[in-house]
């Protein structure tokens, strides 16, 4: 249990997928102008990450990993080089499935998340989390917790940046630095703040 809490805290704060590994920057910069859309996209990312990371774990462990096809009588098969293309297909499919499910069961949720779901398929944070999950040899439960934690960390980062950017509108930034430049510097300062969490273990 402690391990799981550690993985969660680590993926939210110290190893924040965005602030420590720079993943998901594109939509992070583009969508953080408004706090409501940032929250919407944040929830969508948490949702998709929590589902795709364990699903990709299953695919990797039972189809792609070296020796994973032993159950099919092919113990020498190593398909791990296919993981990139498999993961991206799984992610695109899951995003599509989730979009249809949300559309069926909750109109309100669909109205607020719907626009963001297609964007997520190409968000590097999603693919990155799945690849990290393979590289760090997580178990099934760990990978689910890791996916959820990464999502929460990403959401925390984008919502805080959106809040800061709302304030920045009234700031007098030097010419040439407005917009993109100052956003990167603010992100850098946020990343520094998040690093202070390092060393927290239970």
């Amino acid at each position, binding site marked *: 249990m402690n391990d799981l809490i550690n993985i969660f805290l680590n993926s939210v704060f110290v190893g924040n997928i965005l602030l420590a590994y720079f993943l998901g920057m594109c939509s992070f*910069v583009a969508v953080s102008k408004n706090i409501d859309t940032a929250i919407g996209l944040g929830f969508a990312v948490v949702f998709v990450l929590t589902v795709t990371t364990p699903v990709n774990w299953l695919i990797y462990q039972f189809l792609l990993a070296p020796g994973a096809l032993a159950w099919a009588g092919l113990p020498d098969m190593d398909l791990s080089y296919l*993981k990139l293309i498999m993961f991206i297909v799984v992610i695109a499919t899951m995003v599509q499935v989730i979009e249809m499910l949300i559309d069926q069961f909750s109109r309100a949720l669909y109205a607020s998340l719907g626009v963001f779901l297609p964007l997520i398929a*190409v968000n590097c944070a999603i*693919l990155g989390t799945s690849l990290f999950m393979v590289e760090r040899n997580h178990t099934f439960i760990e990978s689910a917790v890791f996916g959820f934690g990464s999502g929460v960390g990403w959401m925390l980062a984008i919502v805080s940046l959106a809040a800061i950017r709302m304030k920045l509108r009234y700031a007098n930034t030097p010419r040439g630095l407005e917009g*993109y430049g100052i956003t990167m*510097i603010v992100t850098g300062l946020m*990343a520094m703040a998040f690093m202070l969490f390092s060393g927290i273990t239970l």
Partner: protein
Amino acid sequence: MVSKMKIRNTKIYKAFANPVWGNNPISIQMLGICSALAVTVQLKTAIVMSLSMTFVVAFSSMTVSLMRKIIPRNIRILTELAIIATLVILADEFLRAYFYDISKQLSIFVGLIITNCIVMGRAEAFALSNPPHLAFVDGLGNGAGYGGVLVTVAFIRELLGSGKIFGFRVIPESVYAAGYEDMGFMLLAPAAFIIIGLLVWLQKVLAGE
């Protein structure tokens, strides 16, 4: 002078030069920073990453452009993704086979070229409507523009952070003896964000906006 003007006006020159400076994918269009910054602690990894990226974007643009008349519109994204993923796997396997140490350091970031917006963006915005040779050159230009930013950031970080360039110590011992210290901060993630912010500022000022 005349010949210089002529070169500057050719389509090929424009396709290459535009993304390198005026319309740089990272510092102007804000695309593809995802996988860019994590590999900039050292020049070596940054250069390998830039080369892999240039390879993928140039050949994917060329392939998409060659196939642009036979790709059905509805499934073009999927087709592009398949082409890109194939090239990325090629690059990844190549690095793993011949440069194992560097490929370990690059960890997942070569794989993440797949979701890099630059590759997909060039395929969508340029390759689908231009002939193969222009698409290839446009890809090279985008790769060079991307590489330029990456190498600059990596140069600053490696020089200030560990006093080295390509792993060779360039700051002499006597400077250390006089009390100079490496800036450990440069090796951490926040430094990359701040350097890129400052570079964007510099470029905008130089471009006179």
